[in-house]
C-alpha cells in the first residue's frame, strides 16, 4: 500500500515535472528576493534564455524522431564564429549569415547521413562531431574571441523595433510558431512522431523513414546555426568556446519539459517550458539568491541526472505494467 502511494506520487512528479519545478523555484525565490517579480527581470530572463529556446526547438525535432544531436552546442558557436569571420573579411552581412546557416545545415546533414543511412548510434558520433567543430572554431579564431567589426551586425539581436530591444524575443516567438507548425500540422512533422514512436512500424506503414529522419537532423543543424548567429550578434563576438556544455544542457532541458528521450512523445510548447525553466527561471533564481558558480555547477549536474533518471523511470513503470 505504502509502495503504491510512492509510485503514484512519483508518476505525478514525472509527468508534470517542469511546471512543478518552476512553481517550487518561484516560491523559494519569492520568499527571499524582492527583485525577482519585476518586469525588468522577466525581460532579462526571457532575453537570456531566448537563444537557447530557439536551439531547443530544433533539438525537439530530432528528439521526437528518436535521435540526438549533441553537436548542436558547437554547431551554434562555430556558426557564429563563421558569420563574424566572413563579415570581418568584407562579406556582406546577409551573405555571411546565409553561409553560417548553410554551414549549420551541412553539419546536421553529415550527422544525419552517418546516423541514419549508416545506422550508427547518434551519441558518440555527434560527440565526435562536436570535438571536430570545436577544433575548427578554435582554428578559425586562433582560440580567441573575434570581435565583429561591422556594428550593423549587432542590430540583428540588439536592434530596436517598437521602441524596445526585444528582437530576440520576437525571433523566439517566430521560431516557436514555425517549428510548432512543422511538427504539428505538416505530414513531415507527423511522420517524425511515427518514426520516433516505432521505427519499424513507421517503415512498414510506408513512411520514408530515412529521408524524414535525415531532414530532422538538417533542420536542427540550421536552427542551431541561427542560434549561433543570434548569439554572436548579441555579444558582437564569435567565440568557439560558447558551446562547451550547451548540447547536453539543452537536451536535458527539453526532456525536463516532457519530450521523452525514447522519441515519439513531446511538443514545442512543452520544450519551451523546460527550456525556460533551465535557462531562464533557474539560472536567474540562482543568481538572485547569490548561489556561487560552483554550487550552480553542482545543481546543474544534479538536475540533468535527475531529469533523465525520472524520464527513464516513467518508462520503467510502463515496461513493468506490460
Amino acid at each position, binding site marked *: 500500500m505504502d509502495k503504491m502511494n510512492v509510485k503514484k506520487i512519483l508518476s505525478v512528479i514525472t509527468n508534470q515535472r517542469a511546471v512543478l519545478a518552476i512553481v517550487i523555484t518561484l516560491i523559494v525565490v519569492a520568499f527571499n528576493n524582492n527583485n525577482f517579480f519585476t518586469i525588468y527581470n522577466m525581460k532579462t530572463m526571457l532575453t537570456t534564455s531566448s537563444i537557447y529556446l530557439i536551439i531547443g526547438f530544433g533539438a525537439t525535432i530530432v528528439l521526437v524522431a528518436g535521435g540526438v544531436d549533441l553537436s548542436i552546442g558547437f554547431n551554434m558557436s562555430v556558426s557564429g564564429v563563421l558569420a563574424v569571420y566572413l563579415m570581418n573579411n568584407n562579406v556582406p552581412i546577409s551573405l555571411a549569415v546565409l553561409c553560417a546557416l548553410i554551414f549549420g545545415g551541412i553539419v546536421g546533414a553529415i550527422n544525419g547521413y552517418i546516423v541514419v543511412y549508416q545506422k550508427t548510434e547518434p*551519441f*558518440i558520433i555527434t560527440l565526435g562531431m562536436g570535438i571536430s567543430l*570545436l577544433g575548427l572554431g578554435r582554428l578559425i579564431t586562433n582560440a580567441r574571441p573575434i570581435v565583429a567589426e561591422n556594428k550593423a551586425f549587432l542590430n540583428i539581436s540588439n536592434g530596436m523595433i517598437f521602441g524596445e530591444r526585444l528582437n530576440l524575443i520576437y525571433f523566439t516567438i517566430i521560431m516557436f510558431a514555425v517549428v510548432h507548425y512543422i511538427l504539428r500540422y505538416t505530414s513531415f512533422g507527423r511522420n517524425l512522431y511515427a518514426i520516433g514512436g516505432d521505427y519499424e512500424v513507421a517503415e512498414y506503414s510506408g513512411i520514408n523513414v530515412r529521408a524524414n529522419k535525415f531532414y530532422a537532423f538538417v533542420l536542427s543543424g540550421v536552427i542551431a546555426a541561427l542560434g549561433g548567429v543570434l548569439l554572436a550578434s548579441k555579444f558582437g563576438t564569435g567565440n568557439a568556446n560558447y558551446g562547451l556544455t550547451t548540447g547536453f544542457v539543452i537536451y536535458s532541458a527539453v526532456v525536463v519539459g516532457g519530450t521523452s528521450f525514447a522519441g515519439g512523445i513531446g511538443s514545442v510548447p512543452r520544450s519551451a517550458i523546460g527550456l525556460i525553466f533551465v535557462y531562464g527561471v533557474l539560472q536567474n533564481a540562482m543568481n538572485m539568491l547569490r548561489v556561487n558558480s560552483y554550487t*550552480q555547477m553542482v545543481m546543474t*549536474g544534479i538536475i540533468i541526472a535527475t531529469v*533523465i533518471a525520472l524520464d527513464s523511470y516513467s518508462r520503467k513503470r510502463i515496461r513493468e505494467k506490460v
Partner: protein
Amino acid sequence: MTRQIRLGSVFNTLLKEYTIVIGIMVLVLITSIVEPRFMTSGNMINIMRQFGPLILVALGMTFVILAGFIDLSVTGQLFLVAVIVMKLIDPIGQIPAMLVGVAFGGLFGYFNSKVIIFSGALTQAEALFITYGLSTAYIGIGQMISNGKTMNMSIDLTSSYSMFQYVGLGFIGPFSISFVIFLVAIVILYFFQSKTYMGRSVMLTGGNKTAARIAGIPIYRSITIVYMICGIMTAIGAIVFMSRATTVTSAMSIGLETDVILAVVLGGTYLGGGRGSVLRTIIGALIVILISNCMNLLGITIFWQDITRGAILIIAIWLDAQKNN
C-alpha cells in the same frame, strides 16, 4: 582467375577491418622518416609515461562499454578523487590518502550504478546523460572543496609527498611504477573478464540485456560491478596523474572521456556492448597516444589535432557499425 578474386577480397576485408590501424601505421611511418626525434629513447619514455592514466581509465571504461553502457563521469571523478587525496595527505598521511581515494572511486562508481539501476535507464543514451550530469556535479563539488584554486604539492602540503614522487618518477627494474601498476591491473582485469562468472555475466549483459535477465544472469549486479571497476580504475588513474603532475586542477581531466572512449573503440571493442576485451584496449590506448605524439612531433597545431580526433572517433564507430550491419 578465382585465386586472384579471392586474394582481392581478402585484401578488401583486411583493408576494411584494419583501416584505422593501417592509417595510424602510415602516420607513424611518415613521422619516423620526417622526424628523427620520434625514434629516440627520450620520446619512447615520453610515450610510456602518457600511457599511464589514459590506459588505466580506459581499462575500466572497457568493462562499462562491454556491459552496453557508458560512463562520462570519469572526467569529474578523476578530478574529484585527486582533490580528495590532495586534501587528505596532510591529515592522514600518504598511503591512507591513496587508499581512501581509491575507495572513493569505488563509491562514486557504486553511486552511478545505483542511479542508473533505480531509474531503469538501461540504454546507453540514458546512461550517457545521467553520467554527464553526475560528472558536472563531481567537478562542481571538487571546485567547492578546492575553492577553484590550483593545488600544488610543493606549496600546499606541509608533510612530505615522497610516495607520490615515487609513483610519478620511480622505477622497478626497467619499468616505471605506472607501468607496473598497469601490468598488475591488466592481469587482474583480464582474469576477471575471461575466467570468472561475473566477467562472463558482464559480456552477456552487454550482448542482450533482456535475454540475459530472462536467462537468469544477474544483470543488475553486473552493472554495479562494471561501474565500480571503472570508478576504482579512474581513482588509480587520478593518483598516477597527480603524482606525475604534482598539481591538481580542474583542467587536468578535460577531454579525458573522449580520449578514453576513443581508446576503447579503436581497440576494437564494440560500442554497443557484448564484444571486445581489455587486451584490445591496450592497443587502442597506444594508438591514441601515438596519434597525438606524432602530430606533436610533426608540428600540427592543437586545433587540427582536435579536428582529427573527432573525425577518427566518427570514422571508427562508422566502420564498426558497417561491420555489424
